[in-house]
């Protein structure tokens, strides 16, 4: 039978039958909402296109020259024109409101979301779980639990896209972007970089492993590097000498960082700001840009000295500081034991530097 068809065509047909995707899996809590809007939009598109096609075809048949040799000149009709201005306008406004609601659903993380950090670089995704699990081009997540990603790029624009979840967020250098989702079906899904980022753009892909909570727990305990991000951050905090000012002693030069995460601070210029990940990262790099009221602008910049991974460690550490006790402990630790290098590449190549700092 096979030799009646060209082998290429035969292969093509086999692929057609076995491997033909036409609609992406609906694997997140948002996906059904996105698909609902999509089908609504397809519906109005079909109506719109159908209306135009019906008009054109009907008129072409009824008023073709052989049947209707002399045209009747018509100036226009305000009523008709108003109709086809207002009806599309109403439909577009519905689309706008619906789309806006969906947008805010996708980009407003719930407060209890589990945070995972993503660093994009040419051409890979580095995923850092707070528990100290590091992954490249793979993201393991539990299902039925909101996950918030904090995304940053080390070099150029990237874009973090998981089509099965219908979410996507640009990953840009210099600032944190966030996106959240809640996977609903266990499975393995595509992870793409969708913003053109240079030569191997099409290789900057990976997999998202959505797992049942118990599987996830097993994976998480089996793949941890042994040091949580906060622990790494703690070492870095000490190594960079942050605790010489941020130590909550009576004559400390810098503000106490305990419980600072989520607090509302007054800046020197009178503005108020809520401390979030982005604010923490920004103040480490540009301290006087967000000078907190009541302190002198003496903090040096760490621009160019700490890697994005190191910044994530620091941010994660400061987030976990919920009592002064932790800081005192840090001081004790750093006094008693020298900074120990861990298994991260930065540490091994330059033993004098803690992980997370930039090689000189």
């Amino acid at each position: 039978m096979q030799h009646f068809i060209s082998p290429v065509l035969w292969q093509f047909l086999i692929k057609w039958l076995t491997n033909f995707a036409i609609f992406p899996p609906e694997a997140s809590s948002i996906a059904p909402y996105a698909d609902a809007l999509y089908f609504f939009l397809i519906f109005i598109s079909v109506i719109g296109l159908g209306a135009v096609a019906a008009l054109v075809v009907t008129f072409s048949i009824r008023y073709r020259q052989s049947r209707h040799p002399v045209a009747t000149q018509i100036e226009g009709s305000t009523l008709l024109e108003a109709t086809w201005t207002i009806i599309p306008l109403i439909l577009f406004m519905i689309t706008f409101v619906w789309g806006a609601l969906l947008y805010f659903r996708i980009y407003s993380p719930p407060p209890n979301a589990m945070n995972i950090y993503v660093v994009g670089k040419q051409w890979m995704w580095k995923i850092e779980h707070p528990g100290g699990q590091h992954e490249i081009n793979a993201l393991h997540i539990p299902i039925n639990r909101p996950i918030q990603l904090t995304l940053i790029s080390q070099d150029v624009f990237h874009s973090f896209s998981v089509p099965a979840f219908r979410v996507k967020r640009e990953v840009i250098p210099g600032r944190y972007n966030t996106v959240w989702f809640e996977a609903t079906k266990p499975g393995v899904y595509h992870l793409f970089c969708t913003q053109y980022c240079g030569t191997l753009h099409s290789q900057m892909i990976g997999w998202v492993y959505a797992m049942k909570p118990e599987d996830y727990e097993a994976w998480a305990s089996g793949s941890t590097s042994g040091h949580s991000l906060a622990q790494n951050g703690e070492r870095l905090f000490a190594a960079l000498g942050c605790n010489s000012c941020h130590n909550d002693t009576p004559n400390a030069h810098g503000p106490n960082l305990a419980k600072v995460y989520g607090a509302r601070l007054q800046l020197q210029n009178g503005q108020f700001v809520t401390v979030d990940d982005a604010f923490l990262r920004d103040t480490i790099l540009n301290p006087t840009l967000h000078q907190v009221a009541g302190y002198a602008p003496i903090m040096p910049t760490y621009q160019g000295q700490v890697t994005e991974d190191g910044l994530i460690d620091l941010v994660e550490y400061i987030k976990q500081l919920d009592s002064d006790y932790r800081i005192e402990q840090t001081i004790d630790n750093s006094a008693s034991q020298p900074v120990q290098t861990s298994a991260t590449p930065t540490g091994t190549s330059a033993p004098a530097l803690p992980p997370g700092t930039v090689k000189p």
Partner: protein
Amino acid sequence: MSTIVSLPDQSTATLPKVSYLNKEYGLKSWLLTGDHKRIAVLYMISITFFFFIGGAMAALIRLELLTPTTDLLAADTYNKVFTAHGLIMVFLFLVPSVPATIGNFLIPIMVGAKDLAFPKINLLSWYLYIAAGIMMICVLVFGGVDTGWTFTTPLSTHYLNTNVVTAGLAVFVAGFSSIFTGLNFIVTIHRMRAPGMTWFRLPLFVWSHYAASILMVLGTPVLAITLVLVVLERTIGIGVFDPSKGGDPLLFQHLFWFYSHPAVYIMILPGMGVISEVISTFSRKRVFGYTAVAFSSVAIAVFGFFVWAHHMFIMGISNYSALVFSLLTMLVAVPSAIKIFNWSATLYKGSITFETPMLYAFGFLGLFTIGGLTGVFLGSLGMDIHLTETYFIVAHFHFVMVGGMLMAYLSGVHFWWPKITGRMYPEGVSKLAAVITFVGFILTFFPQFILGYLGMPRRYAAYPPEFQVLNVFSSAGASVLGVGYLLPLLYLTWSLKYGKIAGANPWQATGLEWQIQSPPLTENFAETPIVTHEAYDYEWLANKTRNEVQTVG
């Protein structure tokens, strides 16, 4: 099938003894000409050249995407190829396509002037275009450029070692070419109209070019300064867009799209003008709701400046700002909808014939409607998150730009071919080409919508295997489409010598350009016309023809 073509008796007909084509001879008389018609012809030859270069790039892209792996082109080559395709098609084909060729040829004639207001600037515009083209070819020859046509910073400024500076300057120069074209049109339309040619007697072709010209004049300089900053950042290392120096890469996106979104309207508005003329002529009927169509062009131009950030919804712009831009994007869709319905209504009680330009215009109506409606998908905030940067957006803008603008361009070229050359194109084969183009187009780009919703990212040299079937369809369609574009090149060239002699007004159309000889005189009109009738006044045309017959009799 009935037809309105009225050609002179071919056994006795001759081309006019004196016309813009034969008034002077020699290369110099072309290269130093001030005649808008000759410059239009120069432009037409040049953009055809670049269209086929860009088309060859498209062919390579589609060939590479036949299989999921990078087997024909390596990833870096593929990146250079799609960048070249984008840059050439956008800046060297689409932006000048209708305005610099058909528009250049017709705007002075349609307003009843002898030439554009500034013939030398018009010629300068062509030379700038050629300079940009040569720079672009140099870029390709000396190793290419792989920024994508969007020049995203900091990729373009710090992370590539290809010819970004030359490519940026080429776009800069091409931008000034388009500024000068637009400037010339605006002055001509304001200042050079013949006596009696009021604003509301202007053909809709002129209105849409007027709107597009405003966008060219006001939008392009922002792109120019943005590219200057990119070049300075790359060569010297200033830090306006570089986050490591305190700059903001999103500012680049703002400034770039401030031009590049209106640029979409620069590309499509002139095409809409062509469609108005063609649909009116072949239904023998005034365009339904002339005023609404005219004002919708201007509305598109004005609103076009307020919507650029919809290219940045997922980039982390303020949510409030995203709301505003999404709302305005929805509003800009309305004038396009008005136009579509008005064109459809023009057919009502007309006396319709189906010559090639009309077939292309029908193609435009269908494809542009799909392109426009899928634009609403992308303007809708939540939907945009999933669809942007995927093949959905690729399909969307190809429906608008290729299905819309290129269909309109081909429609216009066929419609005014007898006016430009004095000869008819062969009707049978050209109808075939129109149908092939339409079918090939749908086959090429419709699967890409499905691919886009599946999540296939754009600008990927390799892709997951489950996307292959749809990509094979798309590539197959592209080969059909290629035939559709090669055919006109062949038979139009053939018709230059062997086409039937067209006479002044083969379509029995009402525009001023059809009341003069084909090809026209260098000064267009024997004497300054005095306009006493509205645009698309077929009764006036019938009376005029009757009177002429009586006079001759």
